[in-house]
């Protein structure tokens, strides 16, 4: 700009402007001067035209029928997504579902560079809301589309209801009126909610994101604690769902490790035979109580599993063996009973068989040392001659352990998945599509 050129006349700096209510004379503060369309007198609650220098009255009330106090006082400043905003307006709106009125609060936020933004609060659940710049895509064949796509993400229809404005305070970027009606349709994709608001004049889409009360409290430096959130809100993120995938991935990881371990032990297991002897029960021998001990055998090497196998050529008969694996040096004993039984025959369906002529059991973690078995066989009173063989091997793979480990690993992800499913059930129970109804429509 060259010298001598007339200076540009700067328009007056806008700031908070003090005016008086034309109805009751109370002072009115305009914070979004030039951008607010309506302002409400804090004293008589008359709604005034904020565009008009004389604050022409838009709506007055015979008497103040209802009142409400914003949890964030008007004029409070807070930083949201890196931008300072002042709380300039507050309204209570409600919907009526099956005769019950549900009310929530909306706060109008303003920044002179960035414009307007909103906060909503319902029973301690908060949402940070902005008007959509991109148009969501809905199926226009239906009056209410059951899905909406916004920025490539699918949102599911949650609820459609007619909302009424019950109470207003402060400034609004539209000509707000008590009694104002709008049809609200919410689509959810937790933690976001996509809302369509239809009045007689226009359709507005907004996008909200769930915020816990404590975030609001720290944003606006409010004293005390935020009201506790009651129930599950439509777009409240499930506290566990974020972890479920990780947990299942962890489970898969551990399961793979287990499998590798299992294969490694399976491959490396020595299966070292340490004892092998056959015994026989002749007919007429007493049916029980005849216990005996075997020759001692030695377990060498590290503490490992020991497999005791019993095979008996029984035919339509059985033998039951009470075993005790006894450490000769320490006297420590492992007691267990095993049965070998085998039955077979023919009937109208053909041949059949039941049981097996051999059995094996694994005793885990047996330290090295000198051992012997105490065996106490039991057989049927009229038994034929039964020959049975007892075989002991050390260092055999214990597969059962892996099964138990596998099941134990499954518990956390299953528990969390179940919690997440019940959370989603509770969420959708409050919607236009309660879970039972969803099942019903699916089966149709």
């Amino acid at each position: 700009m060259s010298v001598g050129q007339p200076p540009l006349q700067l328009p007056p700096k806008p700031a908070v402007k003090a005016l008086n209510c034309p109805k009751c004379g109370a002072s009115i503060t305009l914070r979004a001067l030039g951008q607010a369309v309506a302002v409400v007198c804090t004293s008589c609650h008359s709604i005034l035209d904020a565009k008009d220098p004389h604050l022409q009255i838009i709506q007055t009330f015979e008497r103040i029928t209802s009142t409400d106090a914003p949890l964030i006082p008007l004029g409070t400043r807070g930083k949201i997504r890196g931008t300072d905003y002042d709380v300039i307006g507050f309204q209570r709106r409600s919907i009526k579902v099956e005769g019950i009125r549900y009310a929530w609060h909306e706060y109008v936020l303003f920044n002179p560079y960035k414009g307007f933004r909103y906060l909503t609060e319902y029973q301690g659940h908060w949402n940070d809301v902005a008007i959509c710049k991109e148009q969501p895509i809905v199926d226009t064949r239906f009056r209410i589309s059951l899905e909406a796509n916004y920025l490539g993400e699918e949102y599911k229809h949650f609820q459609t209801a007619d909302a009424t404005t019950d109470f207003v305070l402060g400034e609004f970027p539209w000509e707000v009126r008590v009694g104002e009606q709008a049809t609200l349709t919410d689509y959810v994709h937790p933690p976001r909610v996509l809302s369509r608001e239809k009045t007689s004049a226009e359709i507005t889409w907004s996008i909200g994101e769930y915020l816990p009360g404590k975030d609001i409290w720290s944003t606006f430096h409010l004293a005390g604690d935020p009201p506790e959130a009651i129930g599950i809100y439509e777009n409240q993120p499930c506290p566990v769902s974020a972890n479920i995938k990780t947990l299942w991935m962890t489970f898969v990881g551990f399961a793979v490790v287990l499998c590798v371990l299992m294969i490694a032990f399976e491959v490396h297991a020595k299966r070292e035979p340490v004892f092998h002897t056959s015994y026989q029960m002749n007919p007429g021998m007493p049916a029980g109580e005849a216990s005996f001990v075997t020759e001692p055998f030695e377990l060498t090497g590290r503490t490992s599993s020991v497999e005791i196998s019993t095979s008996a050529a029984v035919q339509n008969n059985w033998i039951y063996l009470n075993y005790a694996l006894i450490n000769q040096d320490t006297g420590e004993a492992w007691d267990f009973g095993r049965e070998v039984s085998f039955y077979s025959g023919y009937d109208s369906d053909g041949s059949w068989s039941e049981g097996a002529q051999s059995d094996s059991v694994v005793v885990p973690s047996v330290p090295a040392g000198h051992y012997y078995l105490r065996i106490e066989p039991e057989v049927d009173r009229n038994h034929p001659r039964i020959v049975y063989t007892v075989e002991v091997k050390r260092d055999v793979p214990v597969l059962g352990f892996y099964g138990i480990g596998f099941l134990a690993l499954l518990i956390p992800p299953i528990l969390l998945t179940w919690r997440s499913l019940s959370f989603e059930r509770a969420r959708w129970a409050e919607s236009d599509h309660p879970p039972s109804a969803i099942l019903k429509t699916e089966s149709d």
Partner: protein
Amino acid sequence: MTRPVSNCPNCGAKVMFQWSSSVQTVCEYCKSILVRTDIDLKKVGQVADLPPDTSPIQLNTEGIFRDRSFVVIGRILYQYDQGGWNEWHLMMNDGKSAWLSDAQEEYTVSSLACGPNLPSAAQLQVGQQFKWNGDLYSLSVITKAHYRGVQGELPFQYWDKSDVTFADFRTPSRKFATLDYSDADPVLYLGEFVEFEDLKLKNLRQFEGWS
């Protein structure tokens, strides 16, 4: 750089054009609306006092849109029953002109475009869809606005308007369109929603208590 310089036929103050294609400007001193003729400037009207507005943008605000810098050289101010908005006339560094609109601090940048079969104002209906430049635009709102005033340089004469109809279109992307019914034939502007930060604006107005 030579800029067309002239004197205000009303008050004699120096009037300098920043953009050689400007057709109209407003004398900064006496607020006369001046239109360029082949020979000199002709006063065609007078700007009434503009209402106090709170747009952070002003004449000479500079910014960047799609890697092209621009400077704000003019403005048309509209009002409607829900408030007002500005159409800021931008001079882009490639010599083209564009418009930055700030309706309640919702910013769009658009420029003149061609479209076939533009509907007449009477045919407009919210929800209608039109395909321009391969994109599908849905009519979101029809605004009956009231011309309130002008400032600075404009690429056309614009001073004797009263009520003007605008049709705003949205898309699933940030693309945006406006049909302007200021004149007998509708004029199409295509553009997009922009974030305030992305425009990297300089020389903005300062608001007391805000930075």
